[in-house]
């Protein structure tokens, strides 16, 4: 395991990630986006409640390194209030910069991006 030094931002998000867990019951359409797998080093699920084309609330569940968890939390938070279509527009570069991401981990961020994008385009109704 590479001796990574995590940025304070990553540490804070990892220690207390916003929007973690399951979507509570509520009105609107439930959507679910998923990407990755343990074999790929990151596996991310987003769930969102969409009301009038906008994300009312989004949550994530992730298996992966601290950067994956931090990024998933940031994306879930960012989704809140946005038009659902914008879930496809996660800015990986900005995310990487915000998290001070080691370049070797960029692939994992793409998985987070994919999971969010699938919420927009291929989003299947949540359970």
């Amino acid at each position, binding site marked *: 395991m*590479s001796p990574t030094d995590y940025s304070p931002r990553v540490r804070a998000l*990892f220690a207390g990630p916003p929007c973690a867990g399951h979507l509570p019951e509520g009105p609107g359409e439930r959507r679910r986006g998923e990407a990755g797998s343990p074999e790929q080093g990151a*596996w991310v*699920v987003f769930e969102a409640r969409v009301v009038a084309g906008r994300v009312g609330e989004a949550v994530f*569940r992730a*298996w992966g*390194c601290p950067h994956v968890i931090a990024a998933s939390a940031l994306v879930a938070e960012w989704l809140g209030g946005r038009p659902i279509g914008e879930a496809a527009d996660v800015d990986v570069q900005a995310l990487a910069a915000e998290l001070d991401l080691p370049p070797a981990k960029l692939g994992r961020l793409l998985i987070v991006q994919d999971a969010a994008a699938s919420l927009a385009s291929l989003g299947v109704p949540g359970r």
Partner: protein
Amino acid sequence: MSGPASVYLDYAATAPVDPRVAEVMAECLRGPAGNPSSVHPGGRRARARVERARAQVAALVSAAPAAIVFTSGATESDNLGVLGAARAARDRGRHVVTSRTEHRAVLDACRRLEREGFEVTWLRPGVDGRVLAEQVAEALRPDTVLVALMHANNETGVVNEIPEIGRLCRGRGVLLHVDAAQTAGRIPVDVETLGADLVAFTAHKLGGPAGIGALYVRREPRPALDPLLFGGGQEGGLRPGTLATHQPVGFGLACEIAAAALPVEEPRVRALRERLWSRLAVLDRVERNGAAEPSVPGILNVFFAGVEGESLLLELEGIVEASSGSACSSARAEPSYVLRALGRSDAAAQASLRLSLGRFTTAEEVDRAAAALVAAVRRLRALAPEGAMERVA
């Protein structure tokens, strides 16, 4: 940082230096200069201390002092034993037997031998992590010159059937190199009982300083060794270079202390390890990697289904210091090849922790570490997508 100090559970990577060892080394360093090879009184004093240390190191493994060659650590001892013995024997045969779960020092030395025209048989242990004598028996060929196997594995702590393998090798006139880095000072090690021609060990795993190790080289019959380094003829021509007095002196004292403490420490540490395991076993889907016994007392390697290794380590930061895979190879992000050889998937290998206990580990620390581990695993499992416990397995 507030709160209690973190619990050090990485004794298999390196053990804290015993305070008495640190003291005697400091005194050595403060003392007058003396090159053990020089004739004047400073040199003679240094030499006398080095020879006393050699006797202390030899006693730990029931060897004659003259059979001990000081090196810079087990990595060099393994290289000198494996490369040295195989290269010296290359006119007799070019076949070497080892296992896939050796430390990289042996593994990479054997790979080097392959590039030099040797053929290497890579034994694979069972899921219990043991390499058995019968596997070695099957692998031996008329052109086999060397068997290189570890006494206990540094990741799982599992002990191999070395005495049986030693008898087998001796019966066939094949040299046996044993990496005892994880056993010396932790369980009884007797070079005669092992039946080994070459035994590698290192100070920093048993309360001594890093940067000094030893290679036991049997006297009768004495295996021919092609040295790795050439120079001033020190250490019987096998290991030139000015010997640092403080390093063997620290190693020697650490060996003496470890030998004296062993009868008490071995059961104590073993009991603490089982206490740790029983407290972790409250979790669903945790498994030991490798057999529980026979093993060195202080290593517990646990697989936590459903978690990710790097996150687990960060979760434990400042609370528990442990290794994911072996520390020696943890500069790489690759999953442990040892756990892979035992049949674990990449993700499962990465979701495993080596928790290693030792001399200064207490029951209170074990309980604190266990509580932190249980909480960490529960939190990460809760964060993970449903099904993670089944898919990371």
